[in-house]
């Protein structure tokens, strides 16, 4: 249980009596990019929410540690402060809360460096420029009336500003267009090239391999029916691209 990394061991979890995760083992080390692929309903998003502590997801067994700390004993905001970040597939809209104020509260929570509003605004505008985002975003209400692509960009801005130790990007079935995919790719690349983010470990959850054209994965895992059934390198993602999930399902005898 000790040592660096986001270390998931034999994780079981359920949602409203339905058992979804049936023993997940994963070890994401700093600076590494893991892709977690799988068909719909295989439990990928459940893993993301179980890691971050969503109240509807109940962990029924196993352990998760973040650089040696027992993550599962902590409230969601404490997990974030340890350096865990989840990019949501469907982030909540919060009318009346401005993006700028939210970003400031979040940054102060996870990186309490006491940056004043003016200095923080400068940092924010720099990051937005790097991500090619319109500064008008800052005055809008959080995800309120945002398009899918705009929501994704805001998630990527948060990734960039919060510079977590471990980032889980839930990209499953997101129906993103090429521009949005590229923005994810650019954000990940920019973070990995920054001082704050050069050691960030990534777990990129995805249904389609498209995103991996923009971010190169060190390790690729295939998830089916609540278990990781196969692990390989980038070539495994290309195989999914060519063959879909059926041949892997047959080969491994997985159910879903």
């Amino acid at each position, binding site marked *: 249980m000790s040592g660096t990394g986001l270390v998931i061991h034999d994780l079981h979890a359920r949602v409203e009596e339905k058992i979804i995760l049936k023993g997940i083992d994963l070890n994401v080390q700093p600076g590494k990019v893991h892709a977690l692929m799988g068909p719909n309903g295989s439990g990928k998003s459940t893993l993301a929410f179980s890691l971050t*502590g969503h109240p509807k997801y109940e962990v029924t067994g196993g352990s998760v540690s973040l650089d040696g700390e027992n993550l599962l004993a902590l409230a969601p905001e404490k997990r*974030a402060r340890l350096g865990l970040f989840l990019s949501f597939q469907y982030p909540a809209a*919060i009318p009346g809360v401005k993006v700028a104020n939210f970003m400031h509260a*979040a940054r102060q929570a996870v990186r309490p460096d006491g940056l004043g509003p003016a200095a923080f605004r400068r940092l924010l505008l720099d990051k937005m420029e790097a991500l090619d985002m319109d500064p008008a975003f800052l005055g809008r209400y959080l995800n309120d009336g945002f398009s899918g692509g705009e929501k994704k960009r805001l998630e990527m801005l948060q990734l960039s500003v919060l510079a977590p130790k471990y980032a889980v990007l839930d990209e499953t079935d997101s129906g993103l267009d090429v521009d949005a995919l590229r923005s994810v790719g650019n954000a990940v690349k920019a973070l990995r090239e920054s001082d704050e983010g050069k050691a960030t470990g990534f777990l990129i959850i995805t249904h389609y391999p498209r995103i991996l054209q923009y971010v190169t994965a060190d390790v690729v895992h295939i998830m089916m029916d609540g278990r990781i059934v196969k692990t390989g390198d980038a070539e495994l993602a290309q195989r999914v691209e060519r063959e879909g999930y059926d041949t892997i399902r047959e080969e491994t005898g997985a159910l879903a």
Partner: protein
Amino acid sequence: MPDLEEAPVLLSERFRAAALERYTTTRSGRDKPGRYWKIDLDALDLPMLLQIGAGSVRFDGVAAGTIVCDLDTAAREHGSLLERAFGATRLRSTKFGALTTAYTGLGAFVYVPRDRQIDEPIVVTYASEAGAAIFPTTVVLLEDGARATVVERFEAGSGAFVCAATEVVTGERADATCAAVQTLPDDARFIATRTASPGRDARVAWAFADLGAELVAASAETTIAQPGARVDVTALFFPAGDQHVDLVTSVLHDVGRSTSDTLVKSAATQNGQARYLGNIRIAANAQQSAAWLRDDALLLSKHSHIDSVPALEIAANDVRAFHGATVGAIDVEQIFYMESRGIERAQAERMIALGFFEPAIARFPGETLREEIRATLAAKAG
């Protein structure tokens, strides 16, 4: 109290006696106490209980070319102007409007002449001593094409009782905004009766924030009797501790081609209780009118309660009317999203609750007033 011997007829003793009689014989129209709401507004024996104080009124932001004065001065020096607005609406037909009229010794008259447009708000501040009752009446008269914003404020010590009335009358194409921010002490009581009658193609906008007092019983009734008029009603309230808020807004479309837009945002925490009744009535001959009513209530604690009743009565067939009401707790997905960014639950709830009020806050005049409302809400949200 003015010297009744010399008082103009509007404020004569007989006039007051008639108003008191009206108060005694008129029902509030509010529901009886129920499972949550424990106060019977018709059973409050207010005149017997009260120690009537002199109080005072002061004015800020008075522009040249307007008349802004206390009610006695208005009755003495501008009697014919005052009479065109004072009593021109249904104010005295309501129970608490009649009560204010019966005891009013304190008041303000705001008069804006034809086509005079004033940007800076005229601020009317009523003050009273601790434990005393005051009955301030604000009368606003805008001539054709005039525009003005009147902000009412109330300052009172512990145990105060404020029973206020506001009456607004406008000419054609006028634009009147009347805002009130009430932040009385936690043991004060506040009753407010507001009535308005916009002229042809005129606009009347109400915006009130009831954030103080242990008991608030407020009503705002606007009668549209001239075509082309528009009415905007904005209200926000946030009972905390043991505060009770009872609000009724009414827009009566009596003629056609009239528009109204009512927005009410409320939250309750701790043992805070509130009830809201939103009336929209469109008469049979008020064709081509449009009315919106939106009312959202947020419950932030187990023992808080808000009853919200939109009531639309539409007799015309060529109208557009919309109403929507929600009551509930903060969405768990919103809280989790903020928590997942490291923000503590209490702070997340506070930010979400304050954000919830923003669309209503945005409809108050002036950034200073809006910031004051935000700060008061933030303090209540803990």
